[in-house]
């Protein structure tokens, strides 16, 4: 197995606050890894650092064996590393089909064309294809503002996939989605992921979903990875139960954890 993502001593401080500290992980190609941790445990900070949105305070990141620290989201996307967002990042006042068409044009390196329409037959076919895979074809010609939250989450992930990534980081794909919809959403996403053979790392609060879809889990607490291993082992760990999954009431989901 070849390693695809490797971080060493990755840390981020906001003033005196430690958002992430000394994160050392290695992920091999094709793995589906879950990331758990309570709010503020450093999960989103970790994703932001790996995808170039937030510069780390210290440490190194390598993707496909090459160092990537200091590269922005744009360069990392071109290298095959991209992400989805807890709050879907979409072009709200544009039709869904155009959200996808521009992503496809960029994937072909054709984002600077001025005379050819962005909606070429080939791109439309590709867009229709992914809309179908994600079960959101009915919104094709609507504005994004007309979509419910679950559909927006799927569109957000679909756009990320159109960039032909090797690895996809999903930031809480099921947050803001109702209990009944969660499993359909994850089934849809996972099927698309497997079809493409992507390596996936996803943040999730729902332990049942974690157990169902991943083989390996990273448990975060207070900015540190407290446990890394097979899903059953991590979830059975005393410390993890105490700090993450614990026998405490399930926390209401709040917006983001910086």
């Amino acid at each position, binding site marked *: 197995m070849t390693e695809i993502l490797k971080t060493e001593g990755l840390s981020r401080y906001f003033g005196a606050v430690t958002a992430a500290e000394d994160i050392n992980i290695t992920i091999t190609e094709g793995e589906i890894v879950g990331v758990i941790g309570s709010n503020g445990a450093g999960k989103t900070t970790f994703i*932001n650092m790996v995808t170039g*949105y937030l510069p780390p305070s210290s440490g190194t990141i390598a993707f496909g064996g090459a160092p990537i620290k200091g590269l922005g989201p744009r360069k990392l996307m071109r290298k095959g590393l991209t992400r989805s*967002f*807890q*709050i879907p*990042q979409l072009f709200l006042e544009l039709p869904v089909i155009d959200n996808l068409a521009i992503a496809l044009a960029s994937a072909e390196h054709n984002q600077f064309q001025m005379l050819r329409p962005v909606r070429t037959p080939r791109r439309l076919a590709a867009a229709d294809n992914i809309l179908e895979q994600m079960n959101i074809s009915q919104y094709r010609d609507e504005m994004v503002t007309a979509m419910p939250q679950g559909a927006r989450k799927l569109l957000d992930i679909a756009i990320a996939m159109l960039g032909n990534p090797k690895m996809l980081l999903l930031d809480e794909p099921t947050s803001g989605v109702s209990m009944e919809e969660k499993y359909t959403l994850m089934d849809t996403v996972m099927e698309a992921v497997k079809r493409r053979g992507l390596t996936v790392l996803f943040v999730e609060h729902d332990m049942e979903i974690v157990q169902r879809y991943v083989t390996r889990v990273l448990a975060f607490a207070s900015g540190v990875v407290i446990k890394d291993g097979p899903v059953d082992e991590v979830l059975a760990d005393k410390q993890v139960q105490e700090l993450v999954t614990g026998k405490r009431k399930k926390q209401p989901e709040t917006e*983001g954890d*910086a």
Partner: protein
Amino acid sequence: MLTVWAILIDGFIYASWLFLVAAGLTVIYGVMRILNMAHGSLYALGAYAAASALGWYYAGGGEQLWMAFAIIAVSAVLIGAVTGLAIERGLLRLMYGRDEILMLIITFAVLLILEDVMKLVWGTTPYFAYQPYAAMGRINIDVLTVSQYDLMVVGVSIVIGVGLWFWLERTRIGKILRSIIHDREVSEAMGVNVRRMFTITFMIGATLGAIAGGVTAPIISVVPGIGIEVIVLAFAVVVTGGLGSILGAAIGAIIVGLARATSIHTMPELELFIIYAVMAAVLVFRPHGLFGQAIARKI
């Protein structure tokens, strides 16, 4: 050496005037996040009000200097506060929460309307109110002659600057305003009446603009279009200093003032050019001005 003195004196006099003009603009932006283009009109309204009030006073045989200052102050404060209240209550209130850039365009519309309102009220012939300026005379500093009225403008500017600082840093309302600047939503949740604070802020900012105009009236001929000229200068000052910061406006005014004075005494053909060139140069190195701060986006 003489030129250096002249540049320093002229520069600080001009800087004081610039600060007067820019103070209200930056207060309003700091609290309300509205870059008020109509600020230029409030300046012009203040100038017209003071000029016509002084005109009546002197036509009636008055000649007391302190009365003239009282007239300038009262007329400017009255017209500034009333117009400010009308704009805030009548229009801006309907628009809160929109993009900063749309608010800019809305205040541009207000500026256009007020420009013609002033033409309809005061006509297009110039108003002069030079009497206080002439009455105060000149003094010699070394070999340079300086108008005492200009020195008084420096004094007014310092008083207003210190007053604003005291108001924002040392009073209860100032504390509330700073909480709004820091986080509007949280202060609203804590029970702050943000709307009332906005009204107060806008009235004070508008009044400052009118006072700047009133103080300037004896120095210039009050004609249509003075507000339109002034507003871009005020913009240059607050953008150089960093939008929304009082200290920034003061420093920006000093930089712009000195730059302009330097240009006038050495290369007069660059006078207008230099002000905006300074602003552009500052922005190249400090993208949000000297004391401005960038706001990060949450994802």
